[in-house]
């Protein structure tokens, strides 16, 4: 990928969100429950950033906003100097060609082999001859250690392997922004370690801006450059992994220590327990 078509220089943020608020609209068009409010964040080229927070804190929505899948009610989302939500359809698709996204469960095309899955973006967006596509696919699969599995169907491989195939597919076009949605969820310790190292090395090799949405604290703090903590749609803390570990903020401490008591409530808001059971006087 040529860098000259990019309006941002190396020290400018490749991804910048400013004052972003978002609520999923209802069918009638009115905004529904507020998911994000006033979120600011930035990611530079070659930087690996983690978005952490509990379930429902709005982490995945940030990835959807960056990919232009949903539109914010307020604020701007800039990727490579372009306002994602001001782009026309064709321009958005052109920008997406420079993004790679790893979905939580891989989202492999189940009617295609591992090889065809990785070849998919190459076949769709390039006119490369078959021999070149074959070489590129095998190189990408080799990078994730699955060159030998190229002929298998998605139903014949494990969840961890599917995630790695999806990673190979996400980097097929050498993206400049790679987004990972819960890349560690449900992985065994070996696959988890391998995936974490892959994410680190791939981002460095491609010089890409990388964003990991995760709640695997230890694994993520070991590989990322910067962390944003989200709670109830707001960024409540941010810093380098060392700053996060040293943080005295109750929310961060609770998250890093994984303790049930703290600012994050285990219980979904509910009426009085005794009253609910009919025991209240």
């Amino acid at each position, binding site marked *: 990928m040529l860098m000259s078509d990019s309006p941002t220089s190396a020290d400018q943020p490749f991804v910048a969100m400013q004052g972003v608020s978002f609520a999923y609209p209802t069918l009638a068009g009115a905004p529904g429950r507020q998911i994000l409010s006033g979120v600011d964040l930035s990611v530079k080229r070659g930087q690996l950033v983690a978005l952490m927070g509990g379930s429902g804190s709005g982490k995945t929505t940030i990835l959807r906003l960056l990919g232009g899948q949903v539109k914010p009610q307020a604020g701007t989302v800039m990727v490579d100097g372009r306002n994602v939500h001001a782009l026309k359809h064709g321009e958005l698709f052109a920008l997406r060609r420079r993004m790679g996204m790893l979905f939580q469960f891989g*989202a492999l095309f189940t009617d295609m082999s591992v090889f065809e899955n990785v070849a998919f973006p190459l076949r769709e967006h390039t006119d490369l001859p078959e021999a070149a596509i074959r070489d590129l696919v095998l190189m990408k699969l080799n990078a994730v250690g699955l060159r030998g599995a190229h002929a298998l169907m998605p139903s014949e491989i494990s969840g961890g392997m599917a995630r790695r195939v999806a990673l190979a597919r996400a980097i097929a076009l050498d993206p400049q922004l790679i987004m990972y949605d819960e890349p560690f969820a449900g992985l065994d310790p070996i696959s988890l370690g391998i995936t974490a190292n892959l994410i680190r090395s791939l981002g460095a090799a491609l010089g890409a801006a990388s964003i990991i949405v995760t709640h695997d604290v230890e694994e993520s703090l070991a590989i990322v450059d910067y962390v944003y903590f989200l709670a109830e749609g707001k960024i409540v803390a941010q810093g380098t992994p060392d700053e996060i570990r040293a943080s005295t903020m109750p929310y961060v401490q609770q998250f890093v220590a994984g303790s049930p008591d703290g600012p994050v409530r285990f219980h979904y808001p509910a009426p009085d327990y005794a009253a609910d059971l009919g025991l209240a006087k």
Partner: protein
Amino acid sequence: MRAFARSIGHGVIDAVAKLGYFARLFVLTLRQSGTAFARLRLTIAQIHFIGNYSLVIIVVSGLFVGFVLGLQGYNTLQRYGSEQALGLLVALSLVRELGPVVTALLFAGRAGTSITAEIGLMKAGEQLTAMEMMAVSPVARVLAPRFWAGVVSMPLLAAMFSAVGVFGGYIVGVVMIGVDEGAFWSQMQNGVDWIDDVGNGVIKSIVFGIAVTFIAVFEGYDSQPTPEGVSRATTRTVVSSSLAVLALDFILTALMFTKG
């Protein structure tokens, strides 16, 4: 009372919104059909999948419908001494009505459901979102090839249904009951008009192909991405497309066969 009124209002708004979405997606599918033609391989694979695999049910049903037409037609015609017209009755019934309509109903059950379930499961597995994030339009890459494959397959299947049905009528009427073979074929040849009967039958099956396949594609694309959502969408495909076929059949018949 207010809740009841509100629920009616919600229902109407939802229905209008869905109808609007249906129409918009239809136009979008037509506009993004370039890929389906430029990369004909994609559409041919779908024709093979949804057309070829529907052949057995279409041929077997056509044969039995032909048997029944032969039997019922003979019983009725012989009361008036017109059993010679059996060939004409069988052929006109099939070419004008039963061929397109029964094929469309069987097609909705056989191919429509599989199209809806496949697209619904692709949606549930985030495959369509993944495609969008790879800057590939699911409408162009997934919906349009399936839609055109259905539109191409329907008239061909209906033609096969009618041909096999005529053969079924021949077996029962001529071979088993003993209606004169010459009269059977010559009356058919004289009485069936290429444009008024066969042509209109083909137009019907193309319209049904568009309706059934697009309903199947739409329901899959619009389904809730859960197992329950996909199963509901599959049911809706059969119900909506069957009703659409029957309603369209009435409208088309009224337009085509009413002499002004």
